[in-house]
């Protein structure tokens, strides 16, 4: 547990959007588990912070939700990406790639020397 990283500020929304894109409609618990799995269990997600983040995305119109039935026949609220959400995901993903690419250049100066 000790070597797990907390979720970085502002990245949770992107992860949620990406998860929804990959998985299709899915409930909150499923999103949380999927994020942990995708990170290879390196991320520690406080489940309590997930729901306000989902609410924010919904208020901003990037996702919608409706009640449905889970794989285990349990009532659960399912989240789904909207068209605006898809665009937002593209935009945010691009920004992240740029940001990480810039950081990568700083962190491996050897590459620059070549």
């Amino acid at each position: 547990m000790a070597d797990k990283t907390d979720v970085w500020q502002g990245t949770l929304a992107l992860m949620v959007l990406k998860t929804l894109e990959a998985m299709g409609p899915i409930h909150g618990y499923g999103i949380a588990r999927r994020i942990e799995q995708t990170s290879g269990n390196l991320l520690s997600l406080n489940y309590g912070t997930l729901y306000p983040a989902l609410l924010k995305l919904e208020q901003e119109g990037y996702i919608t939700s409706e009640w449905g039935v889970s794989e285990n026949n349990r009532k659960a609220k399912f989240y789904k990406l909207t068209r605006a959400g898809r665009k937002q995901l593209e935009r945010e993903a691009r920004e992240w790639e740029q940001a990480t690419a810039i950081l990568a250049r700083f962190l491996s100066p050897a590459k620059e020397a070549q």
Partner: protein
Amino acid sequence: MRKLRALWLRLRGLFGSESAAKEFSAELESHIAMHVEDGVRAGLSTEEARRQAMIRLGGLEQAKIAYRERQGLPWFETLWQDVRFGLRMLVKSPGFTVVAIATLALGIGANTALFSVVNGVLLNPLPYPHPEELVTVHASKPNFSEGSISYPNFRDWQRDNKTLAALAIARHTGYSLTGMGDAEEMRAELVSSDYFSILGVKPVIGRLFAPHEDEIGREPLVIISQGFWQRKFGSRPDVLGKVLTLDGRNYTIVGVLPASFNLRINNFSACDLYVPIGQFQNPALNNRFAPLGIHGIARLKPGVTFEQAQDDMLRVSERLEKIYPEADKGIRAKLVPFQYAMVRNVKPLLLILMGAVGFVLLIACVNIANLLLVRSNARAQEFAVRSALGAGRARLLRQLLTESLMLSLTGGLLGLLLASWGTQVILHLLPQELPRAAEIHMSGTVLGFTLLISLTAGTLFGLLPCLKVFRQNLQDTLKEGGRGAGSARRSAQNWLVVFQMATTLVLLVGAGLMIRSLAKLSEINTGFRPHGVLTFGLQASPSMIGSSPEATRAYLREANARIAAAPGVEAVSFSWAALPMQSDDEELFWLDGEPKPQSQNAMHWALRYIVEPGYLKAMGISLLKGRFLASSDDEHAPRVVVIDDVFARKFFGNADPIGKRVFLEQFDEPATVVGVIGHVNQWGLDNDAVNPLRAEIYQAMMQLPEQQLGLVLMGMDVVVRSKYDADTAFQSIRNAVVQMNHEQVVYNPETMDATIADTLAGRRFSMILLAAFAGTALLLASIGIYGVISYLVVQHTRDIGVRMALGADRRDVFRWVLARGGRLAFAGAVAGLLAALGLTQLTTSFSSLLYGIRPYDPLTMLGVIGVLMAVAFVACYLPARRATRIDPMQVLRTE
């Protein structure tokens, strides 16, 4: 956009939060159930799995709180709480709330109303491009600092100057329009070609006057106003090229001006027609000396300062004086910045009123602060309890500020309603010449102003009691049970009352001085009996123009007889040249025995009245000596004049003026003085005594030189004394005139009473507003002192009860309470008196509004102090009565 959408959903979340909370609980439940199922599947016990799930969730309640905060707007919820609590508090004490809001509405309303006037008149730049480059141009002469420019001088100034981008002149005139239904009098402006381009005006259709089209002898053209176009031509575009018959001449329409254009030099009022100045049918137009009421407007070249332009124009006019030493002797071009010229008459007045109304707002705020102080004393207990329960200072401050801002914003809203009504009232009262009265309305600036003063007032008087609350010792207050009050707090209230009284007194002094000035003015003898006198314009049928002198005289006699025969008419006279308080005209002359002066400027000057025998009776002027003009003083009789007593004293001293002879400039043979009549107030009630030109001379209309006789037909004044009211009289006269010839026009009827009232319009306007403000201030201040003294009585209930139990008389108690109030009022009155004396000395613009009294007029001072003290005592009477009704037994029992 997304952010806005989220904000909106969160605002909605504030309200439907109950079902949303339930839904989230269900979601969390299903989340936990799934988590537990997974745990059990992984081999944990149900309890352990549940524990793990809770840990990962970070606590059930915490999750719910985080969710709820995202759902709604936490700061908004607190605010909403404050507002609801504040509303409850305000509703709980309706008396306080109503008084506070009404006070604020009055203060803010009065300020907003006056500000919208000031904003429209003083703060808004003129509606022309680069208004700062515009100047009005006049000719300064020995007798007039801003006299009229003669046409030849205008042409020379226009050609010779180096600093003006363009110079134009204009003169107001009237035309009788015929051939389009009944003959009608049209307001018109004679202008030179550059007039419109200087002001940046573009025609709606057609064109403006081209250069040189404004010269003498060119084709008669006319530009019409949009209103005229609409009225007479139904806005049809084929109006261009059509012909208007004005004073019997045909003018071709070349363009239409936008309805928004309404300038005459020195005031804003709309005209129907614009005609090139060269079409002015006055034979004296091309005379370099003739003062024909023409004034100029110019635009400075970019980068040229006002002083440079003035110097340049002085140089031009000095050069002309050398070339035309007689006609241009002492004539200098005089420039006045346009913006200043338009507002200079009303600016000091409006600023004084704005100051006065600011005082009213100050008094209103002090009132609220006082009321809130009293309330905060009563609520000290409540605040102490809340602090003890853990409410932070910031939280309490926020609560108090919310309450006072609620008060001030409600007051501001009501004030806005009051102001929209008040603005109309002010505009109705405003002197006619006020620039751009039509453009005054509630603008965004005005709304902003109201919001600003509401917020400022609310914050200021809300903070004052807060400071008090925080200074008090929590424990003492809790112990005292909210009964006692520190003497420091009461002295703050006393200071506020004294301040209020002082401010009110200043306003009362201002209003009192204005009222006294107007009273003095109304006692002034005008020299004639204005009541029942009606004046109007008469223009003969255009077909008469150019008639022989004999035909003209015959026409005048017939028209006079027709009007005299109209029902109710007691006396009638035509008048040309000067008319008291309406228009003026000068006669140049020299006395018998004096050598003929070399130039006009070396002659004597007098006001010239050209009238008929009925004038004396129509105006009701008293005859002092000899006789007035008679119908026998006609074109065949020797030339005679009648003078007023000022003329007689000035030029003949103690000698008998009857039979003396004077040489009038326009005649070769002298005229004989046949009578002396009382001086008539030519310049208005307030200005006549100080005007250098007061001597008056009367000549018979039938003895006018033939050339001028023709001009009379193009527009003269008629003075009538009638038994009937003005409307009936004018109607019957109009019928008589139209019966005689339907192509002649009567127009612009005005009673002499109204004319005299107009000369006092500015003073009356400031008097009414100052009195209204002072009355409001007095009302507010009396509410203030009433509140404080009432509170004093409540605070001293025990003392009073004990005193009465110990044998104090009810009268003693009554007197004690009144004395407390009286002391405050008196202290305020003295402070106010000193302030008023200082202020009236300092503001010379206020002194200029006074007439016949000094700014420290003792009678006024004593009077307003009396009023203030009386009102203060009345305000203290109720609490004093209440104090005498205190039952000592009741008080002692509760102790």
